[in-house]
């Protein structure tokens, strides 16, 4: 008699539920998972090494591309590390803009997570509903920075430019007549802040809609309750952070525990779960979207009342205005120096961490005094989560692995870096 062997299945890297390029080697006993072995590195782009050969400001764009669904939060981490080493603080208005866009990014990320998670479990309609909302938020990105995804909007010392006073509008085309265009432009008449305010007005109702489709749905509950359970102690031991940790019942949120930017002035709650299963993490993220909407509203209110500079006036770090550059010799020199050589950081090291939508995102920066970082180490929130995949999936069925990958909210841009 030959020995009975486990069935091995190669899940990915080309797989609809692999969230990019995850390759899982699954050892299965029938449909039950005996061992899940994640293989990473298929999206490795050497971001950390690349950053060592570029002046500080030119690396901001790479940060967008790490976790490509929460772009500005990544930038924030990197920019915060530089500011820490330089010992500067951006103007308050810039900090409010950053907090607002961090929360918009959180909603963006959670919407994509919900879309993909629901699609993995088979609820296809959620995917399109979520993308409908993402469209509006990406328009906000575009209005502020000019790019829909990879914004490169945060800079050491503030943000690249102030929020636009006019929201871009749709123009009539052969696909939409004037009446339709008028309807599409209804909430675009005012400034970007008005548009965001309008979004926060309607978004909670949209979340209610999603919840009617999923929260009490028996099939959804059967697929998520009791799946991928991580206890409170184990979650801490495994180095979880963000919603993965809060889903297990630990109220740890860097926005509250070590506030950065202007989170101290914000009024919001941290939702936590009790069971630590996929369903709890789902509820936590849904509630986080509501809380983020709340924070965005507070920021919009403040930003409307308090105009001011959004960038430091220190032209050793922040570029002078283009008009000044054309007329003023000193500004021209500053401009030339900044965009060729860049600025140098004092010798030393700094670690800046923030509450990224997926967990703790940290940038550890070592400077040897040059205009380029000596070393950039990025702590990706998803990495420890993925490492726990085996533990979470063991004993579950093949279909549950898909649910667990979904609940971890993995993005390979940041895991592989």
């Amino acid at each position, binding site marked *: 008699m030959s020995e009975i062997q486990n069935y091995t299945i190669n899940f990915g890297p080309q*797989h609809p539920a692999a969230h990019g390029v995850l390759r899982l080697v699954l050892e299965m006993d029938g449909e039950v998972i005996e061992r899940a072995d994640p293989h990473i590195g298929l999206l490795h782009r050497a971001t950390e090494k690349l950053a060592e050969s570029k002046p500080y400001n030119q690396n901001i764009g790479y940060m967008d591309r790490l976790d490509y669904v929460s772009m500005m939060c990544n930038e924030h981490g990197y920019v915060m590390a530089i500011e820490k080493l330089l010992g500067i603080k951006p103007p308050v208005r810039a900090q409010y803009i950053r907090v607002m866009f961090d929360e918009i990014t959180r909603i963006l990320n959670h919407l994509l997570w919900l879309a993909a998670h629901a699609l993995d479990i088979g*609820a296809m309609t959620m995917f399109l509903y979520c993308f409908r909302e993402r469209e509006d938020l990406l328009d906000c990105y575009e209005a502020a920075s000019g790019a829909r995804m990879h914004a490169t909007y945060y800079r050491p010392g503030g943000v690249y430019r102030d929020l636009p006073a006019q929201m871009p509008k749709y123009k009539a085309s052969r696909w939409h007549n004037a009446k339709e265009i008028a309807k599409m432009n209804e909430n675009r008449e005012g400034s970007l802040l008005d548009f965001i305010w309008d979004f926060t007005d309607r978004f909670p109702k949209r979340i209610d809609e999603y919840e009617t489709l999923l929260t009490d749905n028996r099939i959804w509950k*059967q697929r998520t309750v009791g799946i991928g359970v991580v206890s409170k102690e184990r979650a801490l031991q495994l180095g979880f952070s963000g919603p993965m940790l809060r889903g297990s019942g630990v109220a740890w949120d860097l926005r509250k525990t070590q506030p950065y930017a202007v989170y101290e002035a914000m009024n919001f709650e941290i939702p936590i779960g009790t069971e630590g299963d996929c369903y709890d993490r789902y509820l936590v993220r849904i509630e986080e979207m509501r809380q983020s909407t709340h924070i965005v509203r507070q920021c919009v209110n403040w930003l409307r009342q308090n105009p001011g500079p959004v960038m430091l006036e220190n032209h050793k770090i922040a570029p002078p205005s283009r008009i000044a550059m054309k007329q003023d010799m000193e500004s021209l020199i500053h401009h030339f120096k900044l965009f060729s050589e860049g600025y140098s950081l004092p010798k030393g090291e700094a670690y800046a961490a923030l509450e990224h939508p997926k967990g703790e995102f940290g940038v550890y920066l070592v400077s040897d005094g040059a205009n380029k970082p000596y070393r950039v180490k990025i702590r990706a929130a998803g990495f420890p989560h993925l490492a726990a995949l085996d533990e979470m999936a063991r004993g579950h069925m*093949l279909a549950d692995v898909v649910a667990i990958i979904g609940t971890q909210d993995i993005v390979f841009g940041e895991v592989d870096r």
Partner: protein
Amino acid sequence: MLENFLTLGWIMIKVVIIIVSLLLTAAYLSLAERKIVGFMQDRVGPNRVGPLGLMQPIADGLKLLFKEIIMPSRANQYLFIVAPILAIGPALAAWAVIPFQPEWVLADINVGLLYLLSMTSLSVYGIIIAGWASNSKYAFLGALRSAAQMVSYEIAMGFSVVGVVMAAGTLNLSDIIAAQSGGIHHWYWLPLLPLFVVYWISAVAETNRLPFDVSEGESEIVAGFHVEYSGIAFALFFLAEYANMTLVSALATIMFLGGWLSPFQGIPFLDQYLSWIPGIVWFMLKVSFFLFLFLWFRATFPRYRYDQIMRLGWKIFIPLTLIWIVVLAVMIKIGVGPWFS
């Protein structure tokens, strides 16, 4: 001699009419699905090929026809080709006994329902053989899943059919419809409501549609049993699925919603006023309603897990049907009106 040939010719013509209209239904059902699910999902669906996208199924069909059938290098070549044929064959053959309106039936046999049950059971072979012959782990898993699923739901489905047979006292489909005449409350959906619900859910499971599509399970096993198929071989699986959807909808119509009978039967004024409408129109309307339900489910529900489907089938549906068959027997014995008196 000549008469025999004429009879044979006439049967062949009828077969061709049924198959062509069936394949067209299947093709346009796919367009309807994309359109309806599209509107449910806040988008427009295909609208580029022809007016309102109406030529889309033709374009898709042509594309699939001209694409290469890629044979996996270590697949069982014979079975790999046979599988899609085995899938589409029963799906089309089952239509031989479906009555579209009085006298409009290819073969008015006395064991029509039995024939249908055996034909729908056969279609699982196509899937199992496809999964086995592909020599792919994903396809194999899909085939195993669908084999288990279809076999267990066959039982629940069979028991609901038993209820109908008890109520009508015949296996002939035309007679089953005739037994339901007398208006909308005479149809069997009312006395057999639990069986109707069980039948319909089993039918969705039987055709591997969402929320029971674990054998295809896009996000788990990619496309399940037909992951290795391309070109017209894939199209045959696709057509078989849609033909089966139409078939179970037609069956539900015949067994529970009175087939070709007008819903206004027995209502004084409306009945006479609408009597010019041929029965096939009512039949098609009812079938469309069930087909719409298929699409509606698809846009609404997440997917069950494989073991949960099994639990639902064995632990809930089969006991439920058994109990209701007993209740039904009592109802027939004491002659509960208006159905059994």
